[in-house]
């Protein structure tokens, strides 16, 4: 369970203090799928980063399984991330000098997984890229890179998966496959999903949808539960 209470985020800019998030309260249950929507620049990515423990809020608390990660030091948060969190970045973050397969396998290898490459291969297959495993990111299109990034996030089978615009670069058909994958993971492994998306369809498949506007949570509604 993730619980965020009274989160605000301020950054100092040359033009004075900028308030990106303002008193955000949020609770996500285990196995729940949550969609965060809102206009560009409203603070979605920032919120996601804070929930995942990649960043600290200026005020407020974030608890993962009732452990206050905002009170931890960076090493403590790192341990929490290692244990619970997977992340799909808005800008993919593939390493250019690694092949698709190595990119997917890297987090597994770091964990000491002996079958890292096999697992990585399997997940690449699931995103429809098994034929391209030996290609470098620069040889892949934006959508293909996105799928490699997803395969990488799936492969380490996290308890909570944060995804920033996971289907933003994909055509409808591939997007649909990826969405199916996301929810399959959510269902089969009980993975908690927290997504940022502009897409109505994707948002509607989530259990719940919250809307950010200028750093404030303005709207929270339960979506139609997804039928299996």
């Amino acid at each position, binding site marked *: 369970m993730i619980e965020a209470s009274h989160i605000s985020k301020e950054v100092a800019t040359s033009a004075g203090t900028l308030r990106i998030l303002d008193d955000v309260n949020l609770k996500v249950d285990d196995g729940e799928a949550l969609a965060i929507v809102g206009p560009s620049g409203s603070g979605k990515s920032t919120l996601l980063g804070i929930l995942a423990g*990649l960043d600290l809020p200026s005020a407020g608390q974030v608890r993962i399984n009732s452990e206050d990660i905002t009170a931890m030091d960076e090493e403590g948060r*790192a341990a*929490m991330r290692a*244990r619970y969190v997977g992340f799909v970045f808005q800008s993919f973050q593939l390493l250019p000098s690694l092949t698709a397969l190595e990119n997917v396998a890297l987090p597994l290898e770091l964990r000491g997984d002996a079958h890292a490459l096999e697992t990585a291969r399997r997940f690449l297959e699931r995103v429809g890229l098994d034929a391209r495993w030996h290609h470098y990111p620069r040889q892949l299109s934006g959508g293909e890179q996105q799928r490699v990034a997803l395969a990488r996030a799936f492969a380490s089978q996290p308890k909570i998966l944060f995804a920033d615009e996971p289907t933003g670069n994909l055509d409808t058909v591939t997007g649909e496959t990826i969405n199916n994958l996301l929810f399959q993971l959510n269902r089969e492994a009980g993975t908690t999903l927290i997504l940022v998306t502009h897409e109505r369809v994707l948002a509607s498949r989530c259990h719940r949808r919250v809307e950010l506007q200028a750093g404030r949570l303005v709207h929270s509604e339960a979506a139609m539960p997804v039928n299996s």
Partner: protein
Amino acid sequence: MMALKLLWRSWRGGQLGLIFGSLVMAVVVVTSVALLADRVERALVKESSNFLAADAQVRSSREMPSQWLVEAYDRGVMTAEMALFASMVYSGDYNHLASVKAVQDNYPLRGVLTLSETPFATKPEQFQQVDHGPPPGEAWVDSRLLPLLNMNLGDRLDVGEVSLRATRVIVEEPDRGGSFSLFGARVLMNWEDLAASGVIQPGSRVNYRLLLAAGDDDLADYLSWLEPQLAVHDRLLSPDEAQAGLTETLAQGRRFLLLAGSLGVVLAGIALALASRHFAVGQTATVALLKSWGVSARRVRALYWQQTLWLGLAGSLLGLALGWVIHEVLIVLVRELLPVNLPAPGWRPWLTGLATGLLCLLGFALPALWHLPALSPLVVLRRDMPVQLVGAIRRLLIGVVVVAAMLLWYSQSLAMTLAVLGGLALTAATVMGPGWLLLRLLRHLGNRAGSVWRLALGNLWRRRVQSLVLLAGFASAMAILMTLVMIRTSLLEEWRWQLAEDAPNHFLVNVAPHELAGVEKLLADNQLQSVGWYAMVRGRITLIDGQPPSEELVDSNEALRRELNLSWSSQLPEGNVVEWGAWWDQLGDFSGRYGENVAPVSIEQDLAEEIGVTLGSRLTFNVGGLTFEGLVTSIRSLNWDTMTPNFYILFPEGYLEKFPRIFMTSLYLPQDQKPFVNELLREYPTVLVIELDMVIDRIRTMVSQVTHGLELMTLLILGCGVLVMLSAVKLSMGERLQESAILRTLGSTGRRILAVQSLEFGALGALSGLLAASGAELALFLLQRRMFEAPFELHWALWACGPLLGALLVGALGVLYTRQSVTRPPLQVLSGL
């Protein structure tokens, strides 16, 4: 394992090439130098322990009194006598002025002779070691004598009246340092054949040596008995004394090599730092990603330490291997100067190389990577996150400290470390100061010129730090290379030119008064003309201002140890200049003025300086046992280029005439009249002929070998300079790619961008060349003044070729290296950002 995997992937991605290359270069430069120095040092130290071929040695210009031998026998001291002299040796129609050494059977008393039955043997399995001299009737000779006399081993050669069979070649003698000698090839013969040869006549210039060996006590006993009996022309040598000069020579050689090596290491270090900086930028994304996955800072640090260590080990090992190869090449290049039989190196050079590699990484690579473990995972989310780098100043300081540590390790001397550091700082300042001004000037010029020029020169100025680093690296390496090439070609040429075509090329020394008329007639019969006869008397300086010179002074000055040629003349000889004091004719009537038996003396200025003699100093001379005093009334400089006899010490007429005198002269002997030397020596075997043409040839060979060796070192240093350039360019590569892509999407042609880049690099190269030319000119000026005493002369070739070659080299390398900024499609570049 993970670390190795990451390392391999970075390597595959081409991000480590420059780091690795720089590291290998640093290790190669140091290892090759260290290996060479170590092996030569070992060879010389090994030799010097039996440097005398005995425990002690007496050297004299006369034969040893038999009383000394008897006494030695009584006191249980082993002795061996030997005689060294120059003599013409013949085989068929060929002849050579050899340095002959006649030894008793038991020579050497200490150490061994290394011989071979294969001329010019270099492989240890072809060597034999013996502890005795050649038997009567045989001669052992230097390999190079065989081609000189057109003979083979087993053939006969004549020394004076005796005919000896050359049975083996000499590889090494314990009491001869190095194989290099300015004089003739060695002929080793038995003492018993000496009398029969008849080459030694009264007045012949022979160096007699008595070798002594015994237990410590016996020897000390004997020496304390012997010492009071030594006359002025006898000199006792113990091994310590023999080694003193050697240690100094070794230290000087090592110092010189160190200087060359450290410049290479510093350049490689700069390249390493730049390349590591570039690598670190590339690793930022990886580390941020790892951290977002929850990899702890400790693990990240460990991963990068391990990668650095593996890289360091691999680079150092490759560097050691290549260093070995380079040092073998160096040995081949300078072989004439080295002992033939170099012992295997010890572990120290290897350790030095390895430590250099690891220290370089520590000092130059790690600081650039230091911030990585502390990197915030937020960097994955926000590209503009400020990254806490180790500051440039601090990195520079760390680099300097590491260089200082390495210098200290190599030299084991704080003073020298500081001197080299100071020299490096001075070089950097003298290159960067003018470089900065020139870059500014260029930018101003560029602003007035066409757009391509403006862009190119503007770029240089915008990336001026990179430009300056590149300038410093390239200019210093190029300056050294140019200096060496000029020394070999131009200076030696100039020197040859100064010697007129028919300048005297032979000296005839040691001509006795009764032989003078005969030698003159022989010359006339052969239509040869000498420069005139100079009479001289052989004597030595025993006291300076009434005091015996200090032992230190005697040790460091050959002139105080041996007999000098004293001469007289009423006229100031041609080419001599009185620097201080006055020539005889301005002294008025000086007979008896300075006291009974005191003569005015004129001394050469370098000798005066070395032995601490000034105007008004009193010198006491010993000539054939008689002493008399002289007062220094003038100090002269000499002109050696004329190849006429020069004398360090001159008297007015009327003082030396009462002593037994000998005569010398010099003459020009055309190549086809060389056999005249044989004729002369057959009739007058005690005359000493110095073949100046041979000596000059040997010097030329020696200088050219040394410069060849140094040129190889310099090429390595230039290689380090190229690495600096490539890493500096690589740092700006992203920027270049982006600029070029944007320019091209805006409609600029690839050709135009290429033109801008060629201009940019070409201009930088030309600047380096210009700075290098001025540096080389300065170095040449100093060298010319100090070593060759030639007047200053501009080397136009330097000023023309320097900038041109620099522009071509840097331009070509730069354009080649950055060409992908034109070849890669702009879309790919921009979308990859």
